[in-house]
């Protein structure tokens, strides 16, 4: 579901090509941290009131609003469960990740 563009890891071969200082080269485009997850949030939209609390509380900006409803960006969601804990309608459940 990710709308992020594809990116490759940048590895410089020569010190000459390096920037002068450590600065981001878009590393989070390829470094998809969702693989760290052991449990995954699943949103049951039939009970969702579109309050946006899950979006607001997600510490990794992994809740995205699509067509006015929340969805999980599994490329980056690490499964912390804060969205499920905070959802007033309890429509987010955490389920075990099967790898």
């Amino acid at each position, binding site marked *: 579901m990710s709308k992020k563009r594809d990116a490759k890891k940048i590895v*410089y071969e020569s*010190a000459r090509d390096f920037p002068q200082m450590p600065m981001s080269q878009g590393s989070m485009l390829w470094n998809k941290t969702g693989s760290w997850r052991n449990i995954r949030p699943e949103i049951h939209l039939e009970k969702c009131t579109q309050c946006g609390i899950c979006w607001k509380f997600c510490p990794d900006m992994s809740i995205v609003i699509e067509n006015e409803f929340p969805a999980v960006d599994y490329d980056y969601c690490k499964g912390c469960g804060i969205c499920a804990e905070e959802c007033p309608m309890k429509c987010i459940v955490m389920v075990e990740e099967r790898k």
Partner: protein
Amino acid sequence: MRKVIMGNHALSYGAMLSRTQVISAYPITPQTQVVELLSEMCADGTLQAKFIKVESEHSAMAACIGASIAGARTFTATSAQGLALMHELLHWASGGRLPIVMGDINRAMAPGWSIWTDQNDSLSQRDTGWMQFYVSSNQEVIDTTIQAFKIAETIGIPAMVVLDAFALSHTYEVVDIPEQDKVDAYLPPYKPYARLTPDAPCAFDGLTGPEHYFELRYKLQKDMEKVPALFDKTGREFEKIFGRRLEAVEPYLCDDAEIILVTSGTAGFTARVAVDEMRKEGIKIGNLRIRMFRPFPFDDVRRILAKASKIAVLDRNISYGYHGIFCQEVKSALNGSGSSAPVFGFIAGLGGRDIKAASFREIVDIVRRQDKPAEEINWIGVKK
């Protein structure tokens, strides 16, 4: 304009004339007047800059780092325990390649609690990747501050301007304060290599893996190695505009000297007085004052000391378990250079005890009596 000012205010004027845009500092004796005057200049509009008050030196350097990443010309000043508290952030400034300029007023480290001068505070930060310039007059304070911004911004490395507590910081001298238009001609506005801006979003100083970290450090060292030539170039440019030459090392009567006294800071000028006196008595003696400590001016030091038959290094600092820190550097500079001159190490003036012209006479008496150093450390003025 010629004015009688204290060393601390010379630092403030240097920062003001450099059109510093952000200053963040925490007051500590003997640095206080530096930022006191700058805060007044910010308040009355003399200086168009943001003065950020903070609760510690750690936060002061953190604020400077943020301002510098945002593209502002940034200044701070501190002493002793304050500098030690900044230690972690000093690495962030140099590793992040931010041309922050900082005044450090050399104050002895506690305990025993001291406000008086010695160099152990700044020399404890030797390996943080900052340039260090040790000055010996109020004129040099103001001139070197302006030059430090130019070097730092050209090469992307932060710089410390280091001066002795009280012996310079609170001593009033006549200073030729440069005209603003001349300083503007010498030091153009800061153009950062990259900066934090919404126009080109980018994160700085993030996680850097083993595939890249090593090269960043390699580049920092390679750029450090360019500084001696850059110091010379910017020193000559300074001379063209202001008529005063700024050099990484300052030899005095060294050409025919058999004994050369190596010094730094205010002790450098005191040494000159002693050299003049002893020259009158026919002693062939000279003085080499080291202004740039990091990067260390190896080539200059080797060249000037090459002809000396004996070398005496005066340190107002100590590396416990070895000896004086400038002495170590001089010895390592001479290693393999072909010089067979013995290097005598002297430690004097710790915690603000006076270094007088007579101290240098005592040093020279020891050097003349001995063919080789009898002691690793010769203590001058200590109550043994």
